[in-house]
């Protein structure tokens, strides 16, 4: 056990503890002269419109990704868990984006969503010229495009986990219900859903924490723009530390991010664990 603990302490715990110290300083990341300023970075945050918006965007992205990705993932899982002939092929295809490097998919999509990109070309080709948009240039759309890219990439991941859950449900249970004449929707709701509880737990945990920490995709797709319309806590941490030289403030933001992730994970774990116990 010791090697694991040592590695973990050396790479994560000790540096994090040392890092947190900077959250209480006004260090600019360069000047060896800096002062300890107590909680000022945190109180400043409350008056920083950009930071508050970034928190809001982070929450919005996390919630939207979680709901949409898992909704689509579940439908896909039900689809490929059927008797269709292409089910194995589709499983492999739909899951494939999940193994590809996020920064690479984000660059791909940045081009697809450009004014002369493939998405607009496609809309033009099918006669929907009026739907053509500057997808990443419009502040009201850009955030949703980030959600779209994340969902495209990871819906297959959710699908695979749901699929494993579905397959662990004994066929007899289904058949018994079918013989009873239970309708498909009711069958799903009263029989399948409770048995899927572990899969739901895992999926929600993964997507919500992934959504909160999201960085690569935003960095590559919009860089937080236009303006600050898609800044998340993670992109703001990056900008404050490296572009603006407000290292202490940036670490204070990282501390806030930690607290949010911790609260959400703990809360989610407790609630879902209880449901899972109740369901099984």
């Amino acid at each position, binding site marked *: *056990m010791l*090697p*694991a*603990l040592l*590695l*973990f302490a050396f*790479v*994560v*715990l000790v*540096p*994090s503890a*040392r*890092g947190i110290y*900077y959250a209480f300083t006004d260090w600019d*990341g360069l000047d060896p002269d800096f002062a300890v300023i107590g909680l000022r970075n945190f109180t400043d945050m409350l008056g920083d419109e950009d930071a508050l918006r970034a928190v809001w965007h982070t929450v919005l992205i996390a919630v939207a990704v979680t709901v949409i990705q898992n909704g689509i993932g579940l439908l*896909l899982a039900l*689809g490929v868990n*059927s*008797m*269709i*002939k*292409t089910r194995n092929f*589709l*499983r492999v*295809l*739909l899951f*494939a*984006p*999940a*193994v590809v*490097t*996020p*920064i*690479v998919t984000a*660059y*791909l999509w940045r*081009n*697809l969503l450009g004014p002369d990109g*493939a998405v607009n*070309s*496609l809309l*033009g*080709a099918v006669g929907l010229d009026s739907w053509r948009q500057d997808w990443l240039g419009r502040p009201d759309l850009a955030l949703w495009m980030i959600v779209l890219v994340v969902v*495209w990439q990871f819906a*297959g991941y959710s699908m*695979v*986990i749901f699929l*494993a*859950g579905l397959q662990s449900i004994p066929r007899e249970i289904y058949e018994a219900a079918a013989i009873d004449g239970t309708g498909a929707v009711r069958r799903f709701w009263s029989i399948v859903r409770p048995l899927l509880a*572990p899969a739901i737990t*895992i999926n929600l945990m993964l997507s919500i924490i992934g959504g909160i920490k999201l*960085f*690569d995709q935003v960095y590559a797709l919009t860089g937080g723009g236009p303006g600050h319309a898609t800044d998340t806590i993670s992109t703001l*941490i990056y900008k404050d530390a490296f572009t603006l030289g407000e290292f202490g403030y940036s*670490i204070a933001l*990282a501390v806030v991010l*930690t607290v949010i*992730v*911790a609260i959400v*994970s703990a809360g989610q774990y407790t609630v879902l664990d209880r449901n899972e116990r109740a369901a099984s």
Partner: protein
Amino acid sequence: MNRYTRRTLALEMVMIAVGIVFAFPVYVLVNLAIRQPSDTSSPIAPTTAPTFGNFTGAWREAGLGGALINSVLVTTASVLIVLAVSALAAYPLARSAARWSRGTFLLIMLGLVLPFQLASLPLYQTVRDLGLLGSVWSLVLFYSGLQVPFTTFLYVGFLRALPRDFEEAASIDGAGPFTTFRYVVLPMLKPITVTALVLNAVAVWNDFFTPLLYLSGSDQQTVPVAVAGFVGQFVSDWNLIFAALLISIVPVLAVYLALQRSIINGFAGGLKG
């Protein structure tokens, strides 16, 4: 229930349509990667005069060869180390009911919520003091520690669900804890090890920001860093960039297609943990 009905056919059609929608970006990726830069037709029109010049150009300019070797090296070494130390750590954590065991477990779990930004600068300075900056081994060290919480979490969950009968039998036979772990527990860990291996490999291979920081100022790169640098440098030429993106994806997809069953089961395996 098991018959292919008309409704199944309808479902099949819908699912194929969904598959096409998902595959559309990949079609554009390939389509533009084989297109001559002078060809300015619509990005969705099939390329009529394909060329492989973009691939040779991208390979040469982006330094993808060296980057691929580095990525393979870093991923292999980090994943092996993290699996070994985490499995060893998980065993006592899962089996001991002592208070220190629970405390240690919670401490390690703390690692799941700490964002890397907190540790990045102090760790950078430590890596510097070790003389590892610009070396791919700094990344191996980093990921070996970073992935411990997640991997340990997987193993502990799996072990807790595993019956103790075999171990108890072994210890009655006079085997010590290490022997028991090696000959009794380890073989049973195979399914979760596949899961941990796949998830860690994907996480390490795809990471972008850490290598950017630790390898900066050197000629060493990993694939994501090489690609990002290439995009920054050749912003003008999307055909070339798409070729580079495609080259960077192909090894991953090849491994995925070759081992699809294990990989998909691996991803899903976290479920049983």
